[in-house]
């Protein structure tokens, strides 16, 4: 049984802009996309070592929803965590659900 952590109300998230949240002992970057879906990946940018992915620009690259690190612009697939610029690198992805207008993340 996955456990779920309530993060915020869906309305607290701007469309195509991330927000960081503490989930368990780590940091998660939560994104609300244009199509209404919500995704979560680790907030740690593996290239710079800073907890900043929630502050990246969100968009599409070749049809893939992605966030660009605000530090040096590497792209990360929001669904798989895979780095689009370096196949050897990935960030963790987390399950997300919206229950009665509240965003929940499973650590």
């Amino acid at each position: 049984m996955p456990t779920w952590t309530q993060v915020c109300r869906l309305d607290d998230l701007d469309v195509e802009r991330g927000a960081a949240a503490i989930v368990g002992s780590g940091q998660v970057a939560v994104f609300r996309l244009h199509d209404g879906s919500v995704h979560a990946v680790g907030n740690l940018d593996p290239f710079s070592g800073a907890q900043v992915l929630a502050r990246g620009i969100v968009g599409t690259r070749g049809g893939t929803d992605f966030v660009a690190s605000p530090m040096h612009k590497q792209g990360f697939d929001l669904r798989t965590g895979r780095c689009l610029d370096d196949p050897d690198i990935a960030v963790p992805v987390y399950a997300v659900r919206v229950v009665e207008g509240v965003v929940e993340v499973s650590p």
Partner: protein
Amino acid sequence: MTRSTLVVVGHGMVGHRVVECAVERGLTAEWDVVVLGEETRPAYNRVGLSSYLSGTDADGLSLLPSGGYDDPAVDLRLDSPVVGVDRERQVVMTSSGEVTAYDVLVLATGSVPFVPPLPGRDATGCFVYRTIDDLDAIRDAAATARTGIVVGGGLLGLEAANALLHLALETHVVEMAPRLMPLQVDDAGGAVLRRHVEGLGVRVHCDARTESVLVDDDGRAAGLAIADAPPITADVVVFSAGIRPRDQVARQCGLGVAERGGILVDEQCRTDDPAIFAVGECAAPGGRVYGLVAPGYAMAEVVVDRLLGGDRGFTGADMSTKLKLLGVDVASFGDTSGSDDTLDLVFSDQVTGVYKRLLVDADGARLRGGILVGDASAYGVLRPLATSGASLPDDVESLLLPLGADAAALTDQAVVCSCRNVDRATISGTIRENGCTDLGCVKKCTTAGTVCGSCAPVVKGLLDAELAAAGVVVPNGICEHFELSRQDMFDVIRVQQLRTFDAIVAAHGRGRGCDICKPAIASILASQTGGYVLGRETVALQDTNDAFLANIQRNGTYSVVPRVPGGEITPDKLIVIGEVARDFALYTKITGGQRIDLLGARVEQLPQIWRRLVDAGFESGHAYGKALRTVKSCVGSTWCRYGVQDSVRLAIDLELRYRGLRAPHKIKAGVSGCARECAEARSKDVGVIATERGWNLYVGGNGGASPRHARELAGDLDTETLVRYVDRFLMYYVRTADRLQRTAAWIESVDGGLDHVRAVVVDDVLGLGADLEADLTAHVASYADEWQTTLDDPDALRRFVSFVNARETPDPSIGFVAERGQPRPAEPVLVAGDSIPVGAP
């Protein structure tokens, strides 16, 4: 096999070409090359010498920017003037006593300016115009001078006059002949040229025979005495009345020289000693000296060809020239002497100052030559038409009209670049074979257009034709989501009044955008609407710096830079900055833009810091934005004993006028209160330097990885005109530059370069002036401090938290250690390897 030694005496443009050609054609596989240069600098582009005083530094003129040749067989020795040749022993001697043996010697000693034998010509304040050192000396003298005279109204004389104008001297040109450039243009062309030149403030004296240099009691030049005319007073006299070949070394060792100077050589460029060649302006093939670079290059190539066993010869040269003198195009090509069997086609527009004369065969079938003054845009096509003898189109007169000359009219054999002798077939073939898609690639692969640049528009035309024929569409869209360039994007957004990303992508793009197009669109919307950058519709488009109105640092914290207009700040405000930095434990550093950087703030601290600063009268300095950063100033005439204008006042006014203007890239400006230039204004996008009569305006300066000096856009402006020109310049840049293109690169990229920008900004040739000023005025009216607006906007403020589910909690991953009494980021633990890509913000 033993190697032979080729010694080249002289490292000017032609000496350099000998070496370049020897390397390119493989001569260095069997030959060592020793080059003995007299100057301390390697070869530089003398054709562009006056640009040295308008922004191009010595490195920019250099033909060998790395300072040496890659080929290890080439030994370049500078500062080594040759004083003698011993033909018996086959050695050359330099002034330092060094002796170098040769198997083959090439003399490329060039020429010296001719100074007429006038009384007083050696007085202090008399100069010639030939080397960078000459220009440095003239510049030093000009610093304390008011008036300068150039003796000689030919091509070099007008170049020298241009130099004096750049040095802000009242400039006279004295020419013995009845017109300027007597060798290149006819009387009617000379009259048009004279009107242009006088329009720039140059005083022209034709039919004027100089009798002597007037010398004052201190032995300094005081002016010129002119026969049958009043004397002209001046502090600087520049002789530019022709050249004389430097053939002394050849004379000393007994080589034959021509009657009027120049080392006599045959078609192989060989002197009467078979082991010695001479090339360039020191040589006289058939007794004639050629004072242009293209024939010199041709001679250099002949010599190398002969050493490789080839049979090329030099049998005369195309003496065509095209120059931009004092901003005026002047060109002559082919045979311009005219005779009974040629007909004239003349176009003369005295309103705009354009004169064109073409000489064609009596049957109108072939172009013999021509003269162009005021508009030489057709030169690149007309010159090869004349020299290749190609048939003319039926409507010959179309060649006289603007744009009438089309690259398509050229035959395959037509030489497009006469400096490097590259024909049309070679250029088109190279474009096809190498798949060139831009002009830079074509220039690199063919060398066409790399010397005087006059053929570049034709080369570009050939490139466009090849690309069109190959069906290649050169993508100029800014990213995968838009096929529009930034400039096109700016225009459609303005014309269609689009105000949201969704509307723009629906009309012109695909997908949901990315880190390239979104900030570009956010910037365009901010430039056009002056709206708040963190509004609901735009916040998601902003890069993190704009989204948090601060600069992200390597550990995810931000830096805060309050605006300090002109760098002027009261002690009380300094104390507030100190108190804020102390209370929030921020690392503090003085910036290069005369303000103070406070580093290490977490996102939730930013509004608290701004509150303290705003309450003390500060506002955002836009250090995070692609926007105006600072206007740096010196203390100016208020305090400085040298200052001639109030530079601080102007810097503050400019900074407050342009603050917050979003642009394709950051914009920096500077104002200096006198010519000493303590504000380093010429390293800025917009630089202003005070003169006794007002302000000189410079544009396109840049520090950073590609340093550029700003070049003069206009001089001696009153403050109102200055501001109007800066308004127009900045808005034209905002409208038309590519994303992340600084003004220097933008000016280089626009067709026509700085001259085009000047035509738009100063002469208003596109009629855009009022429109550009209105946009800027609207920006000024709509300006609001973004920090204050954010503090007043609860919807924006709610984003300034480290965690959406723990709003009061600071990010525990951010740590600091102490260094030199201040905090600095603790080293992060890297997951993706131990190196961070270069390019930190």
